[in-house]
């Protein structure tokens, strides 16, 4: 699974720490997500998508 967090974060002018605080996780988790090292839970994926006002599938790209 890949994601557009880094791109969307830059567009919204948010730092990793800002996003982490908005979705109530550690900054380290955002770093891991952006590097594609960690697949988030459905709740976290939903929370992140909500911050960017997008659907989950627009932020997280599921590959077959």
């Amino acid at each position, binding site marked *: 699974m890949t994601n557009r967090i880094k791109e969307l974060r830059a567009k919204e002018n948010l730092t990793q*720490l800002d996003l*982490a*605080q908005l979705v*109530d*996780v*550690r*900054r*380290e*988790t955002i770093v*891991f997500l952006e590097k*594609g*090292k*960690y*697949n*988030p*839970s459905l*709740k*976290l994926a939903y929370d992140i998508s909500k911050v960017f006002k997008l659907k989950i599938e627009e932020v997280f790209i599921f590959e077959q």
Partner: protein
Amino acid sequence: MKKNRKTLLIIAFLTLLVVLGFIIITNKTNVFKGLNLLIIVIILIVGVIAFISAFKKDQEEKAGLTTEDELSNLIKYKSGYHAYLASMYMWLFIFLFKDKFPDVETMLGGGILMSSLIAYISKVIVKKRIND
């Protein structure tokens, strides 16, 4: 809670220094050699790691940041499982080679220290391979 952890760490560190000083004075020999040196090195490594992680956590708490989330919990559970398995093998080897230890206290103390070191190493490995 924050203050308690800090106080506990300081007390543990001071106790360690006092015990070490007491051993050096009463033995009047060089304790910094062989197995003793290895145990002291492990104690220092574990102590420094514990201190740094407690300090980082404290800083994060002070800044009003989340200190635990789903990723940190996942790392904790996964590394705990691996550390438990690795520790079992370590104890097996310790008991197989028990004749190599000078006394039971050294064997058990060394084993406990190695367990804590294994726990840290396991955490580092799990962090690197979280998606595997």
